[in-house]
């Protein structure tokens, strides 16, 4: 097991903070949850590579780091860093966290009846009684466990902020909602932030949500973000969700998204992993109502010594569901990527239509891809298939470009971009897509 003793002081400090203002029923519950999670984590530790789901991803360096509280936010970095500024380019309602703290000054919350968007710290501090009342409606969702148990415990015990969104029956926003988790600041020690959030879409409501995790600056030993988001989609609700991970070079990112889907709901998730030394994304979709439709897509572009691990798990528990997955990766230098996708079809989920495809383009002979598409089918009247294909650039494609006087470098860039865009064009929310493309286009393939 991998010990988390080096996070002891961080946990205790967080607990003290909560004790100083956490009150009311949910304050008690939260406190207990934190302590229980920490207790379990002390026993289990973080998963090692002996565990099947972490076979290809090694966390042992985390326990060797020395952790300290997050450094102060440098506002001038937030306002001048090109990467972070790009994060603000999406025309949307905005909720901004930097170094784990909610920044009201940079946020722009919607004021629309039936739509509540709140930073969790505001609820804890009990600033607004309406918010507390509203939170009670999503409170149980907040405590749903998902992803790797010990990573969830790590998140639950260290979380200080996050957000919750509730869209009431048949309501929708006129613009996308953008949540930014920024990391900016200098510190000689490692630091961590663990936002934990909830999205609840009630019957017939709609939302376009973008979550960006962007890091900048020099962080010495690096930081790690551990982001957990739990989503509940009511009957006929529609959510188009994008997640961008573009951390600082030495940053570690862990993310877990869980989406529970009720009857005829629609979920479209696009994950884009760009920067960060180690990125791990878990996404788990449970189709709990008939006729629900899930599209889960991902793109990862890795360079240097990056390691990106994507795990998807789609469970069809009810009949007539549909799920589609497309995960594509371009790997350069000595980077490594992992894809582990799983489709589970329960006995009850007859007439499910499910497919999954993983494709990888290897640009360097030192890059490594580990792909593991899984199928577990217990119903007979279903369509289920998966595929995985990995290989180098097609020489005949490059030749085609060459014969039209386009250099090999240029051709490679165009082919790679086209390969990547396939995933982004699955995202039907246009604004989100354009925003993501901006980030992808910053990648320079030094072929």
């Amino acid at each position: 097991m991998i010990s988390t003793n080096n996070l002891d002081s961080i946990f205790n400090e967080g607990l003290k903070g909560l004790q100083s203002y956490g009150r009311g029923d949910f304050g008690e519950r939260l406190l207990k949850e934190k302590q229980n999670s920490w207790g379990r984590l002390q026993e289990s530790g973080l998963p090692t590579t002996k565990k099947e789901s972490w076979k290809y991803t090694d966390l042992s360096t985390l326990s060797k780091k020395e952790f300290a509280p997050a450094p102060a936010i440098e506002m001038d970095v937030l306002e001048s860093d090109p990467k972070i500024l790009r994060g603000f380019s999406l025309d949307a309602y905005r909720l901004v966290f930097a170094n784990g703290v909610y920044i009201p000054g940079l946020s722009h919350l919607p004021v629309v009846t039936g739509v509540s968007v709140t930073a969790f710290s505001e609820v804890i501090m009990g600033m607004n009684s309406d918010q507390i009342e509203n939170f009670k409606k999503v409170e149980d969702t907040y405590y749903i466990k998902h992803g790797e148990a010990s990573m969830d415990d790590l998140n639950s015990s260290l979380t200080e902020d996050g957000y919750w969104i509730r869209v009431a029956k048949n309501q929708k926003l006129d613009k996308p909602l953008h949540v930014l988790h920024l990391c900016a600041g200098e510190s000689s020690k490692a630091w961590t932030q663990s936002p934990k959030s909830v999205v609840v879409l009630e019957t017939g409501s709609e939302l376009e949500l973008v979550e960006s995790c962007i890091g900048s600056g020099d962080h010495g030993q690096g930081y790690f973000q551990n982001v957990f988001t739990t989503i509940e989609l009511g009957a006929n609700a529609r959510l188009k969700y994008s997640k961008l991970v573009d951390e600082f070079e030495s940053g570690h990112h862990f993310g877990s998204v869980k989406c529970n889907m009720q009857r005829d709901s629609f979920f479209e998730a696009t994950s884009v992993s760009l920067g960060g030394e180690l990125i791990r994304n878990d996404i788990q979709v449970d189709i709990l109502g008939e006729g629900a439709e899930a599209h889960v897509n991902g793109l990862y572009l890795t360079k240097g010594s990056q390691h990106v691990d994507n795990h998807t798990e789609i469970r069809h528990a009810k009949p007539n569901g549909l799920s589609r997955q497309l995960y594509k990766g371009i790997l350069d230098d000595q980077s490594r990527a992992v894809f582990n996708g799983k489709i589970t079809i329960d006995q009850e989920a007859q007439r499910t239509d499910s497919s999954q495809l993983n494709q990888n383009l290897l640009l360097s002979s030192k890059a490594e891809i580990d792909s593991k598409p899984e199928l577990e089918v217990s119903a007979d009247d279903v369509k289920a298939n998966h595929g995985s294909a990995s290989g180098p650039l097609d020489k005949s494609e490059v030749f085609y470009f060459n014969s039209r006087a386009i250099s090999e470098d240029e051709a490679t860039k165009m082919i790679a971009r086209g390969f990547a865009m396939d995933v982004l064009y699955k995202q039907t929310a246009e604004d989100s897509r354009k925003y993501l493309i901006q980030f992808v286009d910053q990648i320079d393939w030094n072929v």
Partner: protein
Amino acid sequence: MSDVAQNVKKQREYKHGFITKVEVDAIEKGLNEDVIRLISQKKNEPEWMLEYRLKAFEHWQTLDEPTWADVDYPQIDFQDISYYSAPKTKEGEEAKEGPKSLEDLDPELIKTFEKLGIPIQEQKRISGVAVDMVFDSVSIGTTHKEMLDEVGVIFCSISEAVQEHPELVKKYFGKVVPYRDNFYAALNAAVFTDGSFCYIPKGVKCPMDLSTYFRINAAETGQFERTLVVADEGSFVNYLEGCTAPMRDEKQLHAAVVELIALDDAEINYSTVQNWYPGNSEGKGGVYNFVTKRGRCQGKNSKISWTQVEAGSAITWKYPSCILQGENSQGAFYSVAMTHDKMQADTGTKMIHIGKNTKSTIISKGISADGSKNSYRGLVKVLPSATNARNYTQCDSMLVGDKCAANTFPYIEMKNKTAKVEHEASTSRISADQLFYLQSRGLDMEDCIAMLVNGFCKDVFKQLPLEFSVEAVKLIEMKLENSIG
């Protein structure tokens, strides 16, 4: 269904479930160093073999039983198994070095193999297959020896090979599957009792197919056989393997190791029809089939192909693999795995690409019926040295009934950018539309199903040698009877 009807159904399904009454020489249940020494002594083995066994046993004791396969079964008590059981010879003497000739065999035994349809008498040369027969723990005879001798092919039991060809055995034994490989390989290395050995010399195309037939007969024994096939430069061999066991209510353990080695330009085709007793419809009895099979394409342009029809065993845990070491070497895996009633199968392959321009093909067809579970688990690994490696994998599952499960767990690990690896999998069932279409053309239900299943498995069946192919088709059809409707 009444008990009688149930039994009738079972009898039809597993026609190899009879027990042969022969006097046996078995040792007490239990596993310890003395047992291993005793086995080694009974086989009159040289010191180096005993040492190897003891080393393996020592290592085995440090291991835990693996639990990662997607199968459920009660824990096996390794002390509750007899590790040696051999039929006595006609004179009633102990079969110390195995029977000298087929005439020495108990007529009951000969009848057994005749019942099973195995051509034990050489007069039946028409079948054109040389057979080594393994009954419980010992090889009881090998046919067509003279004819094979003429071209220099060595085909005998592994015990005989240890005595007669120690230099070959020493050179190749345990090199592809070392005893350190896994729990059951270590157990097998410690207690293996017999199996087949085959050596094809340089440039020889084996004049006939070689075959080993395994039969578990005695109760409460385990069968731990060891097969070693070596194809020297430029040689070629077709190797067939078949197996059955009686119907018994107790579980029986079968943990075999098969090693194949192909040198430059050599080719080995290894085909198996596995039909161990699968237990009754409530999952009582049956054979636990935990097998390690691996081939090494050691030389340039060598080829190894595994073709298997897995139709029996309560639990199957089997991954015939290829290590593609030589340049331009090729590995193939063709499999039909059929499960019904309470059977569980976790089977697949590993293709390890080491050499340049290596190629592998995996075609796996799984059929699950009734309340059974059928999993494909495979690994395709391309190492940095395997420039231009190529893999194509296709695994399809067919579900018959709504209480069974079909799972696919492929692992793809790629460390070379010039390699191309493709994997495809799908799951479907025999649809009502297909059945209706065929029935409307005057075929009866059973023929329709046979036809559809045949089509589904065609890519694999066509890889089998003729006799096996016919047997495999019949076997699958028979097992599927009563499952649909």
